[in-house]
């Protein structure tokens, strides 16, 4: 049977119509509002002027946006570089069964259950040098620390806060992946005399590929869209040190009420995430293939 034998049946479109309608109302139509704003100058609800790609050009030339984008990319990169290895390490050291496993799972998951703005507030207080545990402790150790005063401290605090908040997600995903490896693999490795490192390199890591891909994409997208925690903790400051893309966007849209440029930037933001996810996904897919071909030529 060849595919060319298949009859063309246009009725199939009817079958996916419900999905098209659902997606239209939930995603495409709301997005169209943004598209609508992005090509108009709305002076007042009654007076709107079509401006074409003017806003896009303006936004692309915006120096502030460039530095926010750079900051954002650095932040997401740091998040991935810390959270993924740390999550794997955590998952590897978690007990596999018994009451200890349940207890550890609950403990690890706690930070995931805390709402974003509460996380921000927790760290805001935690880092205060007058009453916060972290702030006071650092102060007593003689380390100068102020997330409101120093750009570096603010940046590090936001990063550590994200690591604290989201590494458990990576750990839980990896933990599930590790538990799915049949015991026979470990037994065979034991018989083959494999070291712990070899077991990790040749059994655990390859078997974790699928969940790691999900973890990387989720953590990338989430960190790239981070808003609430830095907003609560630092408000984007000091200066612009922790103003990430969504913060910048909100300032434009809600703070200055520049709906046109904000809409134009929203679309660009959306496309950047889409593009980076696409690149990341394909890169990770190829990574799996490559290790295979590398082994062949070894």
């Amino acid at each position, binding site marked *: 049977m060849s595919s060319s034998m298949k009859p063309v049946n246009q009725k199939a479109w009817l079958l996916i119509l419900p999905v098209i309608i659902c997606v239209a109302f939930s995603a495409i139509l709301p997005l169209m509002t943004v598209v609508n704003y992005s090509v108009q100058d709305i002076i007042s609800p009654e007076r709107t002027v079509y401006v074409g790609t003017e806003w896009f050009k303006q936004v692309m030339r915006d120096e502030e946006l460039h530095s926010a984008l750079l900051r954002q990319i650095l932040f997401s990169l740091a998040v991935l570089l810390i959270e993924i290895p740390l999550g794997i390490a955590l998952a590897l050291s978690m007990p596999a069964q018994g009451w200890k496993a349940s207890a550890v799972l609950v403990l690890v998951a706690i930070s995931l259950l805390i709402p974003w703005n509460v996380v921000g507030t927790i760290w805001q207080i935690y880092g205060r040098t007058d009453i916060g545990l972290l702030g006071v402790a650092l102060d007593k150790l003689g380390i100068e620390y102020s997330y409101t005063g120093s750009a570096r401290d603010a940046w590090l605090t936001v990063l550590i806060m994200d690591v604290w908040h989201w590494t458990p997600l990576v750990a839980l995903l990896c933990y599930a992946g590790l538990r799915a490896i049949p015991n*026979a*693999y470990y*037994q065979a490795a034991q*018989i*083959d005399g494999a070291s712990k490192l070899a077991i990790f390199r040749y059994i655990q890591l390859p078997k974790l590929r699928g969940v790691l891909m999900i973890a990387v994409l989720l953590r990338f997208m989430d960190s790239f869209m981070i808003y609430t925690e830095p907003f609560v903790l630092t408000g984007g400051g000091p200066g612009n040190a922790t103003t990430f893309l969504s913060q910048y966007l909100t300032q434009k849209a809600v703070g200055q009420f520049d709906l046109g440029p904000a809409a134009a930037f929203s679309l660009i933001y959306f496309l950047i995430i889409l593009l980076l996810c696409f690149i990341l996904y394909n890169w990770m897919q190829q990574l799996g293939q490559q290790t295979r071909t590398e*082994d062949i030529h070894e």
Partner: protein
Amino acid sequence: MARLDLDLAHSYKANPQSDEDYALLPLKMCFEDGGAYALLGPSGCGKTTLLNIISGLIRPSQGSVHFGGNEVTNKTPQARNIAQVFQFPVIYDTMTVADNLAFPLRNRGVAPAQIKQRVGQIAEMLELSAQLDSPASGLAADAKQKISLGRGLVRSDVSAVLFDEPLTVIDPHLKWKLRRTLKQIHRELKLTFIYVTHDQVEALTFAEQVVVMTRGRVVQVGSADALFERPKHTFVGHFIGSPGMNFLPVQCRDGNLQVSGVALTLPLSPSQEILNAGQVTLGIRPEYVTLVEKDAPGALPVTVSQVLDIGAYWLINSFLGNSVVRARLSGDTPVPQVGDTVWLKVISEHTCYYKNEELLI
């Protein structure tokens, strides 16, 4: 390479009370260096437990394991230097076939030249040479299992190679081929092979010595011939052979044998010991049951309930009272009809007598 001595018992429960709690009842046995053994028994009889105890994946709850006179009871599989092949293929996905085969050697720091030579040799034996450079993950199940087998065989200095039903995932026609290959490899490499299976054909064709197990107990260790001719336990008679042995309750009283109320005049008299044993069980292989004339000595009247044509021979199922008697008759004998009463001879030099399931004498 070494002689393996076992003197142990194992229970997965912390405080075993009755025999039921034991996965392996106390047993004492030894595997000679370079032998080909099969552990045969139904599922859940403890054969895999025994295998995992030998390899060191499980520590016996009682007793000890000795390799070549040295105690290894508490040693890891690495320290015991043992190879084991599992029921389902275990391969390292990211490696090529060659790297998979080389893995156990590399982990032990064998020189690259030696690894190359050995991997080539094993791949040749298992007909994997053409695939050596391809990634292991894309292969079919039987090729993957061959890699698993290869990893088990690649080390030349192992104490023993253990196989845990390794041919389960293999197609029947390939099974024959691989089994022959394994036998040949055994002859060439002169390693101790211990092969777990629930398939009697597999066990009998592969092994020099078959260890028959049931419910955590080793009931007989012997060659294929011994297991067939003189089963030491009714389970062996029942499990080996197709169909298994016939068992009939027999009264031995005053030097006479009575089967289901029929007194037998004996052409070949069993020993005095049996004749005075009281209630015993008579065992005879269907292959040795013969059709005789009504008045022949030792003839038992049975009612034929089923006649099966199994190609080269007939299989007769019949009833003697409540007991089933099966007979395998060659294709050229006149075949009785269902419902007929025919006379069968069950006493011969092949007849075995059992008391409490154990062979007498």
